[in-house]
């Protein structure tokens, strides 16, 4: 991949992600003019211009990929326009950071075959615990077609961790539970054990999945083990010196250069 389109909804999460991504791509030697960043409003429904811009950007002879941080409802018209304008995953693959099984349920996925999504969990991952939870969820919602997705899995793990922390702290007082949380482990639904870190993030595997015709994802790439969540990006000048540590430092934004709590 030589050229990158970073398309997102105009709010903090896409802006943060794109900022980190841009810094990362530049550090990997991608030229500034080979990165196109594009923002659209919430619920944007007329993607004709943006999709045709992506197409133009992608047909300039270099391999192009799109990283989409488009949020929520705007995704359906976006993917419809992609499909109709004939942008196929073979030519310009789209990697989405916030499109999961639940979003695809509102879409005809046949034209989207091969587009990608990055998550810590996919419903299609074959694991006994995963199958059990999906079966429970579908029984609970009384809908055998109801999808399960990454944020739901996060809740499963989070609640399991909370229960263990409460048992350890022998109290439901929030402050005591927070102190008990780092170090707690709970099984995730993809065959691993997630652990709460001192920075209040947990370890999880990272998967890249490919859209299948049935609205599910096929895992095409995954990390070897579990990845530890960073509180602060290592790619950005403002935040690379910051760490979060609630166990020894008791600080969410400790600066390792100035040795002070309270940011850059």
């Amino acid at each position, binding site marked *: 991949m030589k050229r990158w389109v970073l398309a997102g909804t*105009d*709010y*903090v999460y896409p*802006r*943060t992600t794109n900022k980190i991504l841009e810094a990362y791509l530049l550090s990997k030697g991608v030229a500034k003019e080979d990165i196109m960043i594009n*923002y659209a*409003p*919430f619920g944007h429904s007329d993607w004709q211009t943006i999709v045709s811009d992506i197409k133009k950007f992608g047909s300039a002879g270099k391999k192009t990929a799109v990283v989409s941080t488009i949020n929520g409802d705007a995704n359906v018209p976006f993917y419809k326009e992609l499909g109709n304008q004939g942008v196929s995953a073979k030519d310009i693959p789209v990697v989405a950071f916030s499109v999961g099984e639940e979003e695809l349920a509102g879409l005809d996925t046949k034209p989207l075959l091969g587009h990608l999504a990055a998550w810590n969990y996919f419903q299609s991952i074959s694991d006994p615990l995963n199958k059990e939870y999906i079966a429970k969820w579908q029984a609970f919602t009384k809908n055998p077609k109801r999808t399960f997705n990454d944020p739901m899995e996060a809740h499963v793990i989070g609640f399991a961790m909370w229960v263990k922390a409460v048992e350890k702290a022998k109290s439901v007082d929030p402050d005591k539970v927070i102190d008990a949380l780092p170090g707690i482990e709970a099984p995730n639904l993809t065959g691993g054990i997630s652990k709460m870190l001192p920075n209040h993030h947990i370890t999880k595997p990272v998967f890249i999945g490919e859209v299948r015709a049935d609205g599910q994802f096929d895992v095409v790439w995954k990390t070897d083990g579990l990845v530890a969540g960073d509180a602060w990006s290592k790619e950005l000048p*403002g935040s690379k010196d910051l760490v979060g540590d609630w166990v020894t430092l008791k600080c969410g*934004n400790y600066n390792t250069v100035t040795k002070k709590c*309270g*940011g*850059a």
Partner: protein
Amino acid sequence: MIAGPLIRSLDRGATIFLTICAAATILIPALNLLTPESFFLHVPTYLVALFGKYVCYAILALSIDLIWGYCGILSLGHGAFFALGGYAMGMYLMRQIGTRGVYADPIRPDFMVFLNWPELPVYWYGFNYFAYAAVMILLVPGLLAFVFGWFAFRSRVTGVYLSIITQAMTFALTLAFFRNNFGFGGNNGLTDFKDILGFNVQAQATRASLFAASVIALAICFVICRAVVTSKFGKVLVAIRDAESRTRFLGYRVESYKLFVFTLSACMAGVAGALYVPQVGIINPSEFAPANSIEAVIWVAVGGRGTLTGAVLGAILVNYAKTTFTSGMLAPYWLFMLGAMFVLVTLFLPRGIIGTWRHWNAERQAKLSAAREDGAAVGEPTARPAE
């Protein structure tokens, strides 16, 4: 000079209203701060903040009633003035955070540091002073209303057309404030406030004081509105509401009257927003949403259009109902209830609660006096709905 209209404006209802205000100003903070939690009349802090929010909504309702109930201007964009006042206050509060933000920049708020803004934009200058912010709270909504009204009323945009373009105005502002490039924090808006005038916003005493300040502001706005509507000026407003062309042909400059009252109303809405923000702790672009402005109109309609106490009562009642019903089992049905309220009030209670009550009273009085005077002419009931 000033005392005249003020005294004239204080009839029995207004006196009762102001007495309630005075009582609330003293009693609720006192019950919150001075009584122990176990005391049966103790008012918990979250309720003080909640009541404070209702009071701010009541000021907004008053400002809408002033132009709709008395001058027939239905603005579907009053939430915009409310939010602008709120943003002005929010900018002051952001500047007060100083080095306590995540990035600890003494001048720039966190979101600007994050978005790599090299320096504070010019329009943020001065907001570190409360006095400047206070002026802006009145000036920004007032100026927008003045310019908007100047064009709209001079070219005689009336009725529904005005409603639609005010709605377009607030929609455009929603979109604008959502933009990160606009310099107001994008969809996250302004939040994470620490201090107001040197006091911690979260502190119990600050919350109680803010509540008291809101009620006092409500009382002041009420008195101003009373003074306006009971004056000769107010009579002309009602004349414009009921027959605009006729009033114009009688020689009154209709657009000047409308412009004055529209601007005044926008300033009041701005004050309401400014008091609202420190109490809820956040201001974001969703406050501009057209639906919010329409909802505010229904508060006035429920309470009684063209009655100032009605507007206040409507705002508090509807919001109390909203708080009650949107939490708990009935939450999925709240929109049904709100929707039904819109329909039923317009169909069966066009005068609103206070208006209907006054109408009944007037009819009873008329009947009584008619019986007494044996067939004397019955006067027109007061507080007829506009249009």
